């Protein structure tokens, strides 16, 4: 479904991605794990078109999307739920959801999805008219996820959904993502909480300093010592 080949990205002088290749198949849950600053978020930003890549190819459903704008990419069905939630703080919950459905013309469908989302997150339904900036961290994360759902994506990308959330909320968030995937949406998730991610995913890539160093199914990677070293620095480095 999504094919990334030899992706190179730069921030000014710094080469953040040094040629990343990965693929996500229809219906799959793929995790991208690695320590801070390894280039996980950059990969997602490049895919969603917020960041332009210096080299490499991106294709989605067989079509080349390397030079597409963010607007075109979301239009093709890739939603990006950004790191740090990034809800619109001065807009209400409802309005944030409206923004998620920004490119959709079908009013009826939007309302249907809104109800679906409120079904999934009753807490948000209660706070429909509250401005997002006043929600708690967990509620904001749920709003951010809901907002992505509102675009009816074929592929949803999550960037560090557990970041800054209390452990019990993290668990809830992972459950939600698991449900989204079970409902048929393909998922690509970036996560530093490696064990949780590996446990949930079908396939995972370990990224280190802008390079994919390891890949395999979640089961395969979960016991790999290299993972721990990548995070905590081990003797083998």
């Amino acid at each position, binding site marked *: 479904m999504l094919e990334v080949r030899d992706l190179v990205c730069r921030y000014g002088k710094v080469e953040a991605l040094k040629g990343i290749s990965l693929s996500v198949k229809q219906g799959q849950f793929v995790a991208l794990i690695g320590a801070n600053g390894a280039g996980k978020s950059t990969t997602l930003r490049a895919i*969603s078109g*917020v960041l332009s890549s210096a080299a490499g190819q991106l294709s989605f459903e067989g079509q080349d999307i390397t030079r597409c704008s963010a*607007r075109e990419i979301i*239009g093709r069905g890739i939603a990006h739920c*950004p790191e740090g939630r990034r809800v619109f*703080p001065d807009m209400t919950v409802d309005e944030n959801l409206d*923004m998620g459905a*920004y*490119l959709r013309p079908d009013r009826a469908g939007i309302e249907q999805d809104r109800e679906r989302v409120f079904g999934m997150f009753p807490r948000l339904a209660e706070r429909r008219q509250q401005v997002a900036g006043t929600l708690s961290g967990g509620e904001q994360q749920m709003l951010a996820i809901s907002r992505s759902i509102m675009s009816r994506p074929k592929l949803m990308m999550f960037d560090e959904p557990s970041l800054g959330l209390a452990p019990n909320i993290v668990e809830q968030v992972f459950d939600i993502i698991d449900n989204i995937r079970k409902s048929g949406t393909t998922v690509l998730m970036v996560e530093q909480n490696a064990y949780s991610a590996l446990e949930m995913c079908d396939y995972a890539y370990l990224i280190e300093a802008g390079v994919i160093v390891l890949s395999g199914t979640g089961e395969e990677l979960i016991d790999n010592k290299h993972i721990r070293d990548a995070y905590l620095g081990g003797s083998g480095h």
Partner: protein
Amino acid sequence: MTEFLQHIVNMLILGSTYALLGIGLTLIFGIMRVVNFAHGELYAFGAYFVYFVSILLGLNFFLSILVAIVAGCLLGALIEVVLLRPMRGADIDTTMLIMIGAMIVMQNGEQYIWGGVAKSVNTPFPQAPLVIGSVSVSWLSVFVFFASLALIAASYLLINRTKLGKAMRATFQDRDTASLMGVNIQMIYMATFALGSSLAAAAGALLGPVYVISPQMGNIASLKAFAIVILGGLGSIGGATIGGFMLAFAEEIGAGYISSGYRDAMGFLIIIAVLLFKPTGLFARAERIG
């Protein structure tokens, strides 16, 4: 007491038009970070356009106001595309300088086309004022007051209720995430500048007939608009509305009870005081970190 009531009525009418001027500027600054020195020229443009359409072409007065607003919108879009889009990402004083250049060109263009002699627009309103008790006000001013309120309400609804308005607010709050939602940021910039310009043109179209229309009218409008925006806090429509009424109040009271020579100083003194004690304006939330 009579005098005070009259001052209050004057303040409401003046304030409504000030608010209209301020809203346009605050939108442009808030979303685009452009210090728009040409704002007053769009105000003058609106006034001249009403003169042109209603007097020279002989169209209906109310219709010509609508035409002027649309023309202001188009001119704003044009300015954005030609002058601001190529300089996207330039620092704030560079774009400001461009707008100063546009101001000089537009103001002298007006004089070139229309000459320096002030123009006036006759309106279908009766000349005799509306008198309620001891308070007296012209019918035209009453119309301007309600038209301004309607436009303020309309822009409020546009920003808060429509898809475009939501996209504008989203862009203002978090540009990157807005583009992740599929918002076309370039288009939002153009729409913002066009909307701000059409509000300025609307203010000019409404006030031109109240006052007289001259090439210089934009200068004072720009200055007042800046004052209003600062009072209300940059980027806040509600703030600009209240700021407009506050400035009008300060001027009325200043001229009525303190000294007419310092009338215009009142607004600026309030601004200095506001900024020193509450640097983000009276009604803006503190800008978020990151």
